[in-house]
């Protein structure tokens, strides 16, 4: 431990790293008083709760967060110190832990970067809290299972979920004589050819970022049974897996036959959304978080479906999509688990599972979430895409293995650089699998 602190001090001194990863200065004020009557100190509730969150301000979800904080402050009289950050949240939290200034609660998704926290002792298991705070009936058991580590400890309170379908612009598909989303890869190739002949970009994807990485990993598991996909994503061996290689060959075929938009390797998720929303591309792979931002007049033309299957030998019986309950949740830090903080942490987390807040969150995120009994998805839905998800989406797709929690920690950025290269014409299947295996 001393060596670790020494090294932390050394790195703090060095200042050699780039800026942009400053640790948030989160206060952990608490009030500790000594009883005048007894020598035993009595601990009273803290007056401040610090929260580090990746929920962005100014978004519908951010508005819900603001409202929850306001309610919490009124209910408890305590003050919330909120720090909102972006994709760098894991390293920001870890830096703050190294500096002894970590937040009490971290609102973040469960990924390969956040999964090690419990094992590293920088977050606490919430298994008992779920029971003690009567939240068992409020949380979807499947979500709890995903958030449970190999030792049976629940790593955080699961909250946000998502579905990740393929979006089909039926107006554009109809314009080339296609009246239903393709269900096989052969059909997809045909549709892509027809669309290209008409000057319409077929499948837009953010080949330059995580959205392209997810589609790549979805395509390559077309032939892989679940266990094999889990194994390959966790430990590598893409080149050695015949099924993974068949999937990579399929990806290369789709790329080379022009299914993806030209220069797909240069697109980001934001540019992908913009292209699809503006009707410049007929298909895209995007999560439920994009539904709220989609133009209303486009929604009527969109059918949400799955990724078509190979014509033979598929590991699935229906087109595939992703779903998950790892989209967001609440980690409790050691600071948050301190006795004087516990009442505030309990109040804050419990508030999120109240029917009102859960409904607001569901409406804001347009997705099935990890909580039970209070989903606005059951009624009063105004977004027609969300309505599709609730009404018939689950019958039409089968869910592929979500790779994020399985990839070794810290690998995602490197893998994204390699999958970006895979979208560029000329990369062979062997080069792609070797590059990805080289990351493990």
């Amino acid at each position, binding site marked *: 431990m001393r060596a670790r602190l020494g090294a932390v001090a050394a790195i703090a001194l060095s200042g050699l790293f780039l800026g942009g990863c400053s640790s948030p200065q989160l206060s952990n004020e608490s009030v500790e008083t000594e009883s005048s009557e007894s020598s035993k100190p009595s601990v009273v509730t803290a007056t401040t709760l610090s929260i580090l969150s990746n929920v962005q301000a100014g978004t519908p979800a951010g508005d819900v967060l603001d409202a929850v904080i306001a309610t919490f402050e009124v209910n408890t009289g305590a003050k919330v110190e909120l720090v909102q950050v972006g994709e760098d949240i894991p390293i920001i939290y*870890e830096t703050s832990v190294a500096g002894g200034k970590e937040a009490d609660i971290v609102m973040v998704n469960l990924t390969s970067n956040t999964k090690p926290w419990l094992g590293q002792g920088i977050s606490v298991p919430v298994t008992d809290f779920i029971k003690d705070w009567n939240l068992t009936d409020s949380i979807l058991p499947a979500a709890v299972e995903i958030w449970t580590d190999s030792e049976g400890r629940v790593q955080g309170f699961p909250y946000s979920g998502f579905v990740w379908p393929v979006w089909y612009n039926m107006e554009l598909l109809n314009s080339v004589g296609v009246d239903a989303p393709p269900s096989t890869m052969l059909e997809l190739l045909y549709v892509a050819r027809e669309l290209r002949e008409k000057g319409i970009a077929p499948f837009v994807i953010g080949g330059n970022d995580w959205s392209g990485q997810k589609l790549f990993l979805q395509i390559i598991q077309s032939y892989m049974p679940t266990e094999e996909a889990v194994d390959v994503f966790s430990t590598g061996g893409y080149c050695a897996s015949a099924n993974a290689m068949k999937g990579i060959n399929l990806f290369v075929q789709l790329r080379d036959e022009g299914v993806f938009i030209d220069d797909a390797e240069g697109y980001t998720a934001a540019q992908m959304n913009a292209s699809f929303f503006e009707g410049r591309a007929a298909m895209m792979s995007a999560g439920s978080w994009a539904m709220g931002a989609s133009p209303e007049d486009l929604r009527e033309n969109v059918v949400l479906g799955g990724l078509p299957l190979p014509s033979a030998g598929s590991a699935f019986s229906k087109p595939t999509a992703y779903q998950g309950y790892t989209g967001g949740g609440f980690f409790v830090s050691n600071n948050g688990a301190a006795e004087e903080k516990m009442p505030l942490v309990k109040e804050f987390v419990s508030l999120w599972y109240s029917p009102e807040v859960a409904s607001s969150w569901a409406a804001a995120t347009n997705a099935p979430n990890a909580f039970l009994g209070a989903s606005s998805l059951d009624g009063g839905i105004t977004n027609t895409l969300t309505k599709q998800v609730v009404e018939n989406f689950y019958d039409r797709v089968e869910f592929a293995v979500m790779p994020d929690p399985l990839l070794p920690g810290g690998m995602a950025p490197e893998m994204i650089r390699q999958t970006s290269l895979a979208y560029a014409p000329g990369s062979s299947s062997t080069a792609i699998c070797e590059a990805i295996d080289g990351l493990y």
Partner: protein
Amino acid sequence: MIDTSSRHSLGVRRENTKLSFLWLPAVFWYTFFTVGPLLAMFYISLLEWPGLIAENSFVGLSNFEKLASDDVFWQAFRNSLIQIAVVLPILLPTSFMLGYYLSQKPPGHRLLRVILFTPALISLSAKSTMFLAIFAPLGLINSSLELVGLGALSTPWLASSSTAFGTVMAVELWGGIGFTAILFAARLSGVTPDVFEAAALDGAGHWKRIWAIAFPICREYVGVIAMLQFIWVMFGSAGLILLLTRGGPGNYSTNLSFLVYDTAFSQQQIGYSQAIAVVLFAIVLAGIALIRFSFRAKE
């Protein structure tokens, strides 16, 4: 008989000894915050340290041994050399000529100074956002190419393996040439105009006046600017790469300074990242020595 000069030097020494108490705190401060980090870098490079909050252990030189067989490191090493070989030979002469031109105070030179200095007034983030839009698949460059019938030349500039790193270097040059030209112009303004007028009377054209007169006069100054630009390119370009390409596609735009960042913060290999930083430090030291040698004033 006491030698007065010895007495004088003794007095000066005593005075210096007294003064040393005044500058000692500054030396300590400087040592702590400047030499300390340097020593920390060397120390950390000897550790296996998988993340800021993880335990670390002393592994000797194994991080350096790992470098030898790390393809990504060698690719970054090559990219850094390419970057220096491309950026400095374009930036310095172009800036010097522009600086000379400005120092001649041509009509509109004040406006030109403002225009040339503008890139230095734009933050790295704003600059990167602008260039992300310019080089996007449907961005300004590709749209313009399409407009003039050269659509076949359009490409995802920041995501193509053949153009990503070149594009980053182009942005670097865009930001550096004007600013450096202003620095050169400031130095050349201190040269008496008579020198250039006399050369003109002797029939020397602008080209000759720049390279046969202005450059030798400013030789040492050019050396200092070359050194600063070299340091910036080697150490400071990671920010631009992070914001524009994140080192991709693959590792085609990864250079050493970005790799130091990436291995530390993305891959959580802090000891290894500092081993790369040590190599980078050595390269920069050697480069500085070479630049000082090349630009030292001729006797």
